């Protein structure tokens, strides 16, 4: 299984990881190795086998829609890297035209 550097760049972009050149090359080699091993199961014929997402059967869990105490705005913002006017502060999201 050979992962090329274009794939590494594409996946890193999806994962929001600004990898350095050195990391990209190392990642390419390691991912190739690991996916080679893990990819062995691709050859298995598993038609008709149901997938399992979870070891116990999951049911929707709901609770009564009641107002309950929660974290205060102050507590929620206390460890934010940047906050302003009671909100999380983030860098520019929409580029100027």
């Amino acid at each position: 299984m050979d992962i090329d550097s274009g794939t590494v760049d594409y996946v890193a972009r999806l994962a929001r990881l600004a990898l350095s050149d050195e990391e990209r090359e190392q990642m390419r080699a390691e991912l190739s190795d690991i996916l080679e091993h893990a990819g062995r199961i691709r050859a298995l014929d598993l038609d008709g086998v149901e997938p399992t997402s979870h070891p116990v059967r999951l049911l929707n869990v709901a609770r009564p829609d009641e107002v309950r105490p929660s974290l205060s705005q102050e507590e929620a913002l206390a460890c934010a890297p940047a906050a302003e006017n009671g909100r999380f502060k983030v860098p520019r999201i929409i580029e100027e035209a």
Partner: protein
Amino acid sequence: MTAGSGPPSGDGLVWRTATELARLLASGELSSVELTGALIERSDAVDPGINAYLHRTDELALEAAGAADARRSRGEAASPFDGVPVAYKDIFVTRGVPTTCGSKILEGWVPPYDATVVERCHGAGLPMLGKTNLDQFAMGSSTENSGFFPSRNPWDTGRVPGGSSGGSAAAVAAGAVPWAWGTDTGGSVRQPGGLCGLVGAKPTYGRISRYGMIAFASSLDQASPLTRSVEDAAALMAIAAGHDPCDSTSIPSPAENYLDGIDGGIEGLRFGIIKEFTGEGSQPGVRARVDDAYTRLEKLGATLQEVSMPSFQHGIPAYYLIAPAEASSNLARFDGVRYGSRVAGDTNIVTMNSMTRDEGFGAEVKRRIMIGTYALSAGFYDAYYGKAQRVRTLIIQDLRRAYESVDLIVCPTSPTTAFKLGERTDDPLAMYLSDVYTVPFNLSGNPAVSVPCGLSSDDGLPVGLQIVAKTLDEKTMFRAAYAFEKDLGFAGSPEGRPRL
């Protein structure tokens, strides 16, 4: 040393089990403040050599110990274990106490709430001695992936304590705390338990709330105790087990009392030995101890029979697709916005997110995020993740079939004893392959315990035996482990303790 064999002081005290300490506290021979003080002293003496703790909370522990003593003097003990200190892997969030998950990306974060496990242990009166080291976000088998420093094995400080809950294992094995919490996603409590000569017990998936446990792979993660006796493991598990409305995967039925009938013996129990676990790749010293253990189980009146698990050969590939896939999704929340560090805050959002994550996460975390993102990406989802989910079904079916003819399954915990620091860091795949005996039971959700089965004649280091029960049959698992532990006589003996 056993309870009542001498006055509770000094060296002997730190080696007692939580159960013995609870008796001494109940009888008034010992106060929690004395005990907590002795453990703090012990930590001061041994922790510089093993680096078990990321953050110690001595003051908080002494304060909680004083409150426990006051409750006991009023005859209002919060639980039988009121005043017995505990430590938590730094993956459990603790209100007002820094929690890093072993990663620089969370350095300095102070959570505004307690994990359910922590809340229930506080409720039982257990003073918190501190937060222990781990492989960053629980990804690893040695603690060498910690963003801060590796922990060391008290049996040989040139070796790893195992991982990812290696800090908790090192602390308990060194006598710095009687018991501690870890988490087990692919063996992260059973393997360090095995490598440090301790009991590491994973409950059935869903039995203990995951609320406030920083998520790695949500369909696999389970809080699990590390202790110096089977009885302690059953007791600590029982404190935290049971339904929690804050975790939608929490099993709604009430938890059993795992201590009830624990000394019932194993006469007539049927143990399955997995045909496909041939021992290939295992050290001879490990195989010898595990074979001795099988003989001992027979001597105690159990029967052994072979069971076949053809799907288990695909356990590692399935695990190393499913766990990274879930991790890549769970770790998306670390984006430099709500908590933790931020890099390049004066650029745009995507650059800030990407730079923050590249700088904050360690190499193994990035590797797994990349594998998981790849396995979930368009065009590959069915070939990798979908296939792995179907293998998971096969593993569950194989186990169900086996449990029609046996009560328990036994196998080694790890193919080797504790390895040297640095020995496997350059080969991530080799590190993954060492989880071969533990990951199937995370994929299936079965309860599984590692119990010490003596020292390897190769290197004098501890070997773990793994006992796996049916879903929600923790009681039979503990009963078998207890009978084995008592007959072996390793735990609590001078041989069962590192010369640290």
